[in-house]
């Protein structure tokens, strides 16, 4: 039931090519942005996804560039070449498509007299007719049509519309625009941290290493849940901890929180880990979000929910020192 016919639809052709060129352009641009993020602006990627994803973004960028190039070449060759593509809208394009049993779309045909019918077909046509024909599964006749019909590509191609729709390309420009604006270029602010920390949320400790004169290195997960387990609390209680993080003030000028963001995959799943720092005196001028290193005694105190929470008790405000931000501000 192969059924070759020629289309002529000039407006469709124009919108088809504009659409295809835009698709190639936008995919190429997105691929380029993904590659350039990896090559030149890793710090932008760092704020969006964890390092393990960086090469995946690069690979997807390369793949997009590659497929855009392939498509550009194939589109170039399909122009003016008959039968190059099964639904290229070239004028007088011979394009073979098959009709399923449910297909009943109507073509206004100008039948050329020389058309071939299958062996069981004994119909003769010698007229110009707009007809609704249905090809059954056993139908294998071939028509040579020369028809001029206004069907949109979306009806008999593989189910998608090629109508030029500028709106969707505008949406796709967003990541490209962000790249040129150099965004995101900084980590979460302390306001976002404060919003995500409940008033007495102390259960997560951002401690990375504990120095008890004998330098005890501990895994992050142990510390994260230390407050919840009696044996762990006993292990840490009273030891000196050194902690690096971002300073987040509270409404008391001698109490602050130190926050580290823990990113599992991307910025959307980042959660703030924090520990409360208590100083015997006011901290002085430390801006919110400043990276600091704090050295103090680890204690576990009950909060108003009757749960233990880790606290770092300082000897003086000099135990809190401003430092340069970590190369990767996010904990894995």
């Amino acid at each position, binding site marked *: 039931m192969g059924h070759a016919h020629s289309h002529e639809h000039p407006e469709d052709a124009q919108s088809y090519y504009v659409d*295809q060129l835009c698709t*190639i352009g936008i*995919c190429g641009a997105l691929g380029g942005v993904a590659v350039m*993020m990896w090559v030149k602006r890793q710090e932008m990627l*760092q*704020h*969006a*996804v964890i390092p393990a994803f960086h090469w995946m973004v690069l690979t997807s960028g390369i793949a997009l560039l590659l*497929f855009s190039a*392939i498509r550009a070449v*194939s*589109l170039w060759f399909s122009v003016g070449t008959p*039968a*190059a593509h*099964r639904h290229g809208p070239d004028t007088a394009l011979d394009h073979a*498509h*098959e009709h*399923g049993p449910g*297909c009943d779309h109507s073509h206004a045909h100008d039948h050329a007299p020389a058309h071939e019918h299958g062996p069981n077909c004994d119909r003769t046509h010698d007229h110009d007719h707009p007809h609704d024909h249905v090809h059954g*599964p056993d139908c294998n006749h071939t028509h040579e049509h020369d028809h001029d019909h206004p069907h949109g590509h979306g*009806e008999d191609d*593989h189910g*998608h*519309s090629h109508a030029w729709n500028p709106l*969707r390309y505008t949406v*796709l420009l967003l990541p490209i625009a*962000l790249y040129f604006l150099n965004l*995101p*270029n*900084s*980590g*979460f*602010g302390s*306001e976002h941290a404060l*919003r*995500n*920390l*409940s008033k007495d*949320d102390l259960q*997560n400790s951002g401690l990375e290493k504990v120095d008890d004169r004998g330098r005890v290195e501990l895994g992050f997960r142990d510390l994260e*849940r230390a407050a*919840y*387990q009696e044996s762990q609390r006993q292990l840490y209680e009273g030891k000196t901890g050194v902690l690096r993080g971002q300073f987040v*003030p509270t409404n008391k000028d001698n109490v602050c929180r130190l926050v580290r963001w823990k990113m599992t*995959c*991307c910025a*959307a*799943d980042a*959660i703030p880990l924090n520990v409360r720092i208590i100083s015997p005196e006011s901290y*002085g*001028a430390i*801006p*919110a*979000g*400043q990276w600091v290193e704090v050295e103090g005694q680890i204690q576990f105190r009950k909060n108003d929910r*009757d*749960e233990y929470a880790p606290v770092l008790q300082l000897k003086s405000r000099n135990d809190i020192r401003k430092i*340069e*931000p970590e190369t990767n*501000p996010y904990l894995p």
Partner: protein
Amino acid sequence: MRADGIAPLFGARGAGKLPAAETRFRATPDHGQRITVENNVRTFIQIFAGIFYEALPFIVLGAIIAGFLEEFVPQRLILKLIPRNRFLAIVLGALLGLPFPMCECGILVIMRRLLRKGVPLSCCVSYMLAGPIINVVVMLSTYVAFTGMESTTDSSGRLTNQMGGVAMVTARMLGGFLVAVGTGLVVEWQHRRHGNKLLAADLAADMPASQEDPDATVLEKRPSQLTFPQRIGNVAEIALHDFVDITVFLILGALIAAFARLTISHNDVEEISRNQPAVAILLMMGLAILLCLCSEADAFVAASFIALRPSAKIAFLVLGPMLDFKLYMMYLRVFHPRLIWSIILSVVVQVFIYSMLLHFLWETYGPRLSSALADR
């Protein structure tokens, strides 16, 4: 990250002139407002970029697989592999994530091509819903996130009755499977009543009239004499088309998710749902819809709600990969709104019932399991 990356946002430039407390808390209203808006916009962009660049590689991969699937895999082969019994086909669909692991963003692109190849709609839906949960990567990440949680104690040293890694993985997989199969059956029933009207308009136009008879499906639509480079050209066209089509909706969904993430905090949810299992489950389901997390990452977020009941965490982990803003926007490219709402209703109701059942079972039998595990 720049050394001054954050500081200027919080008034650091004036820090030398004013005492600390004044710098932080007595900024002029205008200045304070500007800082908040600027900071919110930056956080918004960061979350949006996070969701977008995390999903990008998977969508590209999905689109390329979709291109090859469309161009090189014969429809008859796929139809041969699907069991004739529709229930078995749905069950098979739900387990397809084991050999073909894919996250929820990529799976949608592939599923759309499978549909066009004549795979029954219900089977596709069960693969789409369960695939992002029942796969090895997600099992591992869930296991790692919850390992050791069973020994969590409260301040008086009592076990808090949490689930550990193995229990969470089992409960999540089972939940994902049951809900996906249940929804597959609902979709099958709907499809028998309404046919291909349940699909998005341009997809429905290209679908076989009936999926009951595999012989009656659309056949391959390509001249067999295409050369290899021409076929690769076709793969590129399909891949780029699918990529653009789905990415538009990914971006729109990511924008909504970033906004939701900015306005709602985890702790609001944890605070409200402390002692109400049903409320906790519903709130965590709402949070899953708002946050649009990837199924590989959501276990770590769920684990951060340490004190929350395991049943609410399971509700979050089962619903999240099946339904969120981003997915809803992407579903619009595949399904008719009628089917989307059938799927949403079916998934939400089943996840809630499953989580409530789990809650009662775990509250009754869980403590024994927990103590047994903690004693080890």
